[in-house]
């Protein structure tokens, strides 16, 4: 009997998700023992036409990481959706946009200018990449950038969501174990649309730091102060995103002395990650005077960046007004 087929693809992402998969160490041998890897551009040579030639639904499991930034990403997302039985949005980019999604603060034209026409670029004629170009040998094509970055489920139907930037390796190993057991009939897969490989609660819930009543007179950046190693970071005025962030990482950053930046995305029941943090941070400010509130808030130098670092493309508003208007919205 032939083994079930496995694919992994990267779109607008950094490649960290692929490394996280390899970080499961000897468990990767289980993947090889139980699956036939048919398509995984970072690990093996494969052509899109090979995928196009496969029968629909012939790939059992596809892990997709990365957001949809250009028309090539969109084409492959639709292709792999057709060819896969189980499509997993793998990692923060595919789930909620992540760092590439921060580009949704700006119109695509501005992104091109920044990339090709700023002072650090030697481009005196202001040449931009052209998606189609006629050469003597024939016309050549490169992918075309789309006006905004979209998450995978804004483009195709997604079966499971696995958050994290990147997903923790022990969570990946557990998910792979579960799929293998389900293949052998020893376990059941969760219902479609479920978040897998993560907890349902918040990072604060897993955090071991001591918590008291929070009353904040001043926000400060972590690198500028000596934080108490035992005490809740937010209580010390360090903007920590734990209250809104999904658990599943064993509270890694706060345990290591750094604030949670929110890479596991919104916790169960949070419909807008940034709004939840506005509520959380707003309620712990220790002042009832508008002028003093404003002074305290000045300590949060970039609130939208703080609250939407990983989540802008997947948030309720999805992009800034200039980005939307540039797109005819």
């Amino acid at each position, binding site marked *: 009997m032939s083994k079930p087929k496995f694919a992994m693809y990267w779109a607008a992402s950094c490649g960290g998700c692929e490394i996280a998969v390899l970080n499961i160490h000897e468990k990767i041998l289980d993947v090889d023992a139980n699956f036939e890897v048919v398509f995984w551009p970072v690990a093996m040579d494969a052509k899109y036409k090979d995928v196009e030639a496969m029968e629909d639904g012939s790939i059992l499991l596809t892990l997709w990481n990365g957001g949809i930034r250009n*028309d090539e990403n969109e084409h492959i997302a639709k292709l792999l959706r057709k060819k896969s039985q189980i499509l997993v949005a793998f990692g923060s980019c595919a789930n909620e946009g992540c760092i590439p999604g921060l580009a949704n*603060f700006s119109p*695509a*034209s501005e992104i*091109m200018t920044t990339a090709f026409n700023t002072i650090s670029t030697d481009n005196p*004629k*202001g*040449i*931009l*990449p*052209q*998606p189609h*170009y006629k050469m003597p040998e024939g016309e050549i094509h490169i992918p*075309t*950038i*789309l*006006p*905004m970055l*979209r998450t995978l489920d*804004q483009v195709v139907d997604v079966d499971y969501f696995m958050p994290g930037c990147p997903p923790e390796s022990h969570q990946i190993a557990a998910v792979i174990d579960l799929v293998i057991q389900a293949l052998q009939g020893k376990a059941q897969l969760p219902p479609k649309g479920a978040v897998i490989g993560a907890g349902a609660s918040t990072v604060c819930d897993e955090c071991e730091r001591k918590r008291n009543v929070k009353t904040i007179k001043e926000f400060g950046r972590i690198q500028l102060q000596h934080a108490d190693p035992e005490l809740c970071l937010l209580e010390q005025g360090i903007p920590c995103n734990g209250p809104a962030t999904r658990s599943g990482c064993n509270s890694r950053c706060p345990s290591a002395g750094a604030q949670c930046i929110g890479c596991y995305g919104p916790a169960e029941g949070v*419909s*807008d990650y*940034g*709004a*939840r943090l*506005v*509520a959380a*941070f*707003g*309620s712990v*400010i220790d*002042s*009832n005077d*508008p002028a003093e*509130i*404003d002074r305290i*808030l000045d300590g*949060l130098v*970039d*609130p*939208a*960046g703080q*609250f939407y670092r990983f989540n802008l493309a997947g*948030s*309720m*508003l*999805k*992009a*800034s*007004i*200039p980005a*939307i*208007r540039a*797109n*005819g*919205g």
Partner: protein
Amino acid sequence: MTEDTKTFEPTIIGFTCNWCSYRAADMAGTARMKYAPNVRLIRLMCSGRLDPTFVLKAFASGADAVLISGCHPGDCHYIEQNYKALRRYHLLKRVLGQLGVEPGRLKLLWASAAEGAIFAAEINKFVEEVRALGPLNYNKYPLAVQAHGMVGTEVPA
């Protein structure tokens, strides 16, 4: 003011609290005061109940502006929850500003149960301010986006 903004009828979602600002609206109604019909009021028990998510959802669903109203400072039925609303309002305004939403599209208004006339006058003022800003159109976010042509500079031959 352009021709467009003169004829434009803004849609405003207004969140009121059960104890003061909703009663102010009620008072305006029973006293037959007239005010602009652009505000859709939603009653919450308290302005402190206002999850900032509600404001973002209103904008994402096509509202041109959002009004948050509650009891005057010190008068909150739940002692101090309107102060939470105040602090969240200040923070939310900064976040929305970074997203390019004009500050004039989010308004905080304290109104006691006796201030029907003030409530009506403030709404009239707010509607005109938003009319001047024009539509926000957050709900026009096109999920099926068109490709960006990347043109603008010709490639030299």
